[in-house]
């Protein structure tokens, strides 16, 4: 199986480690070779957390610059920061709800304009699927389920070798009982949002 390389970037506390866990368990269930690597040293102090996930026949667990097939950004400015991992055929999925870093609060940085950010990514990557995942997470009943919303959107693109059915099964069996329902809901909302956006791009709506 040809390798597929996926990068997830998030701000510490956004739960991207859970989404990589679900992805890994899904791959195990579907018998897809998978290897992942995480850098989570200072995550709980609000730093950036990056996970790389490699599916298929490869031994490396990390992804070099320019070599991600898919990038999922949990926070818009972090998506932009991770663009060095992308190439012109990379599909990018991004949450559009900003979490302004503290450097902006103390005036030592300016938060990028969201429209500009999207057109930049659109111009460089193959495709950008961007929406406010926080709104959908809230709709699913748990603001912390942004990770599941984005996972839903990711699976919808069909860019990674995992099916909706497998991932849902893993969410049901491997995430905390109390959150299964909202997690599934969040996953579905993300999935249909990505569907809607892609139909739009294709001009069918």
């Amino acid at each position, binding site marked *: 199986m040809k390798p597929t390389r996926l990068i997830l970037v998030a701000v510490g506390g956004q739960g991207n480690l859970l989404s990589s866990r679900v992805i890994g368990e899904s791959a195990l269930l579907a018998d897809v070779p998978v290897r992942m690597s995480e850098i989570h040293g*200072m995550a709980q102090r*609000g730093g950036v957390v990056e996970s790389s996930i490699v599916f298929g026949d490869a*031994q490396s*667990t990390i992804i070099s610059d320019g070599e991600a097939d898919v990038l999922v950004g949990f926070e818009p400015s972090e998506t932009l920061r991770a663009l060095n991992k992308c190439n012109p055929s990379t599909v990018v999925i991004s949450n559009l709800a900003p979490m302004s870093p503290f450097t902006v609060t*103390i005036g030592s940085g300016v938060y990028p304009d969201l429209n500009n950010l999207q057109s930049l990514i659109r111009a460089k990557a193959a495709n950008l699927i961007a929406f406010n995942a926080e709104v959908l997470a809230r709709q699913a009943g748990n603001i912390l389920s942004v990770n599941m919303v984005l996972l839903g959107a990711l699976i919808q693109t069909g860019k990674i070798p995992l099916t909706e059915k497998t991932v849902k099964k893993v969410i049901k069996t491997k995430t905390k009982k109390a959150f299964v329902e909202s997690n599934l809901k969040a996953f579905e909302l993300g999935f249909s949002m990505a569907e809607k956006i892609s139909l739009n791009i294709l001009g069918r709506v």
Partner: protein
Amino acid sequence: MHKLLTGQPGLKTLLLGNEAIARGGLEAGVAVATTYPGTPSSEISLNFFQISQESELYFEYSTNEKVALEVAAAAANSGVRSMCVMKHVGMNVAADALLTLAYVGVRGGLVIVTADDPFMFSSQNEQDNRYYSKLSGLPMLEPSSAQEAKDMMVDAFDLSEQLQLPVIFRTTTRINHSTEIVSLGDLREPKTNGDFKKDPFNYVTVPAVSRNLHAKLLEKLDKAEKISENSEYNIIYGEGDWGIICNGVSCNYVFDAVKDLDIENSVRILRIGFSHPLPRVLIQDFLKTCQKVLIVEEGEPFMEETVKAFAQEKGLTLSIKGKDDDLFSRLYEYNPALVRECLAAYFGVDYTPRTGVDLSDIPEIPQRPPSLCAGCSHRATFYAVQKASKGMETICPTDIGCYTLGFMPPLSTGDFLICMGSSVGTSCGFSKVTNKKVISFIGDSTFFHTGIPGLINAVFNNHNFTLVILDNGITAMTGHQPHPGVDMKALNFEGYARVSIEDIVKAVGVKHVSIIRPYRVKKSIDTVKEALMYKGVSVIISREPCTSFAKTLKKPRGKPFFVGEKCKGHRDCINDLACPAFFIKKNRVNIDPVLCSGCSVCAQICPEHAILPLRDKAV
């Protein structure tokens, strides 16, 4: 039960490298495990700690790596399989024990895990601990994947008992923090009870004994080299005239690169997993059949130096390269593309690197450095010390922990740091040769680790500085591990005593000791001022639980605060305190009620008294 205990042999499961290492220990029947926590090794001990609550395993968080190794060394010399886990710099602390333990050897298996951190994701240096194997004369194994880490751990224990030597098990961050599908093996019942037979002429390392023991170590090392020659971890893959010698994670990048470059039929790869002593004959035979050889190893030219020496012995003149201006660097970690490029360059393979996207028109993205949590007691302490020392010329040696982050503006407290415990020792030197007021900072766990000897030195040699001990009741940075000052009863753990920092400080002879509760801002400033005036060694213990740990314990927390109408926008709160719960909206200061822990420090420093607890807000 813990998943590493319940996993049945043959089960394929997703494991973090560190979980795989811990499982490997259990499959080898480890009975004693010791550690001082440190990233990237921490999850190994975290799992052992949990497992020890529900199995025969004895696990301890030792005060430092030296003590951890001594505990394990004694257990192993009583015939009990033991493991000692540390991050790479911990090995420096343990080195004194390590180098003579190598002479003494072990009876039961002892495996020492050192987790190196190329690129320094969470470390102060990127030293290559493979050199410790050379320095000590101990055998070393290096896994390339999580699966292998688990399997190799079992073999490491066997090897240790076969050679009667501790075995160094060396990993890097990308092994520790990779997650892979691992297939489990059989668990082995640990033998928890040992016996120590007196044999002073082999155990008490006076010169006459050590002279014999050193000779014995060299004999064992010869034996180790023979095992390395035939080790299943030192294997040759493929056929071809070009040779590659690689270790650890680099092997994965090599295998992928060879496939990507389509040179599978031209390359032979010698994968080294048993890396000290290196297999001399195997390598020399390999060199003889190669046209040229590239050595792919992160860090220092550890293998390269030896391989070149091996070539010289046989009069081989082929090109052998590794670290080179045009090839690999001694800096940082490798990645698949880098290895692909170096392979292509060295072997002259046509290759166009994949192009990424043009980043030239990307606007500057605001940095997102890690920061002290909202409501972290360290922030309050730094604030109090800043205010109390206003107008003084200061030098502030700091130490290793969350509080190191205090060196960043606006708290800007932290001027010098080299290693665990260095705050205290360096304070002695700074205060002796400068005329500035020295105020140093050390965390509770770090104080126990290596801070105490420095403090004794300061008292004995009559130095002049103020040491602030940041006592938040836990080892916070590495994920909230216990230390000797922690009230374990309160955390529902039985069988521990508690050591008082205050008693230690007084007992070593510090004459000026004060305690502050940093959330009481004014009182803290006054107390700090007084301590700063003292000539000699003064100690301030700043006591307040780690907010983040309190949160995980679901302790009731204070009401969040909000910024009321009275705010005139001085932004003292942001400029002096920089609590990450603050944010600016429509040019006004706001507090994120989800982040705010209700510590009330900002409310106390606001000159307009505009910051109020949310309960007072008229709804």
